[in-house]
């Protein structure tokens, strides 16, 4: 089914249809991840692949137009190249271990240690969270920094001049009474759900990345109904910038504090008398940092895109 969707994306010329299919594709791959036992990944993919990325593409399309031109000149060559590469890769797969076998090399190196020891060393049930936040804390720190940098990049490309625009997107939403009221009812539970995901990440699927995206989704929903300007009065972009940096700094400072307490950078065991409690505190705080950064960057990116859009409307009128 995934493959069918992908083919559909290739064939479709109307870019909106492409975006719709991308959404379906995201849902499908997320379901696949659930089947493969990767619930945390499915969580993230559902929020990102099926929610945020089609949204951003739509906003882009609103600015650049939706029709694609026919372009057949290089197709034959491209098809050849793709077929050859694909054939080579398939030959390569014959050397790969069998699907689902427990003896594959990937399962014999460090993973058993994580599965057997993390319960005793970190003390939280969700192994993914403990690997993410504790064993590979350095890595995750890097990822958060990457997201922060991407946020800065988008900001510098689409710098939003704080000119008070009189034509916000919200004009169209005034007569959508049903939609407005329903979304007003729904937004608080969404934000609450985000917080639940944030703090429940130790025990079930969830964590900072997912919670950040959900929180951003709630604010984006609000923005879509009430316009960028109104939303900026609630969460201004200056606050967002500070928050994005604050998340990264929070993460880093946890590392520094553990160094000051005599451990290594990001070694949470020294944060409290009992190493397990220390790990708990450390993971909670850095997940919070991750969540804040992700949410702030996502909303920031959305503001940038939507702000461009309302500026363009003004330019046209």
């Amino acid at each position, binding site marked *: 089914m995934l*493959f069918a969707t*992908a083919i559909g*994306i*290739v064939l479709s010329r109307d*870019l909106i249809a*492409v975006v719709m299919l991308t959404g379906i*594709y995201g849902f499908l*791959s997320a379901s*696949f*991840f659930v089947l*493969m*036992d*990767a*619930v*945390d*990944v499915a969580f*993230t*993919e559902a929020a990102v*692949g099926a929610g*945020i990325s089609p949204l*951003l*593409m739509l906003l*882009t399309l609103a600015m*650049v*137009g939706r029709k*694609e*031109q026919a*372009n057949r000149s*290089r197709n034959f060559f*491209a*098809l050849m*190249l*793709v077929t050859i590469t*694909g054939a080579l*890769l398939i030959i390569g*797969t014959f050397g790969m271990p*069998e*699907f*689902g*076998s427990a003896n594959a090399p*990937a*399962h014999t190196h*460090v*993973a058993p240690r*994580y*599965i057997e020891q*993390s319960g005793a060393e970190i003390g939280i*049930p*969700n*192994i*993914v969270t403990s690997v*993410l936040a504790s064993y*590979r804390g350095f890595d995750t720190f890097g*990822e958060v920094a990457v997201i922060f940098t991407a*946020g800065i990049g988008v900001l510098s*490309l*689409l710098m939003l001049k704080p000119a008070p625009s009189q034509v916000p997107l919200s004009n169209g939403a005034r007569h959508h009474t049903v939609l407005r009221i329903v979304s007003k009812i729904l937004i608080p539970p969404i934000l609450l759900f985000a917080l639940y995901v944030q703090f429940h990440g130790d025990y*079930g699927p969830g*964590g900072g*990345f997912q919670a950040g995206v959900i929180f951003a989704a709630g604010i984006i929903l609000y923005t879509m109904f009430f316009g960028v300007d109104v939303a900026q009065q609630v969460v201004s972009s200056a606050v967002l910038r500070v928050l994005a940096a604050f998340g990264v700094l929070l993460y880093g400072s946890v590392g520094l504090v553990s160094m000051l307490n005599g451990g290594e950078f990001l070694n949470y065991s020294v944060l409290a008398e009992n190493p397990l409690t220390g790990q708990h505190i450390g993971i909670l705080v850095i997940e919070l940092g991750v969540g804040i950064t992700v949410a702030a960057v996502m909303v920031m990116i959305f503001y940038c895109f939507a702000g461009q859009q309302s500026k363009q409307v003004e330019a046209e009128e």
Partner: protein
Amino acid sequence: MTLLMSHYNYWIVVALMMVGFFIVIAQGNLVKKIVGLNIFQTSVFILYISAGKIHGGSAPILNDSISVYSNPLPHVLILTAIVVGIATTALGLALVIRINKAYGTIEESEIQQRDHSC
């Protein structure tokens, strides 16, 4: 036959990857190229996740009643990769918007024409 049954996940990955690759090299539209890039990315995610699956295993959340877990390590890697992926996608789309502003089009061929003519 056993080979078919035991390696089909890799073939799905290869097929998806090639579709994404095809979109990136053959299509002139920049937004569509980004979609293709996303498909390519997802195929890599699927490769990792399916490598982490163990038959009869369950999701890696500790529970007394379960003894076999799937490998949590690929999950961690892909989790962060997805979020980084959306960040880069956003950056790419922002670039597309700027290109559209500067050139008035997002078709690769037209952009090249304009570059050559001036």
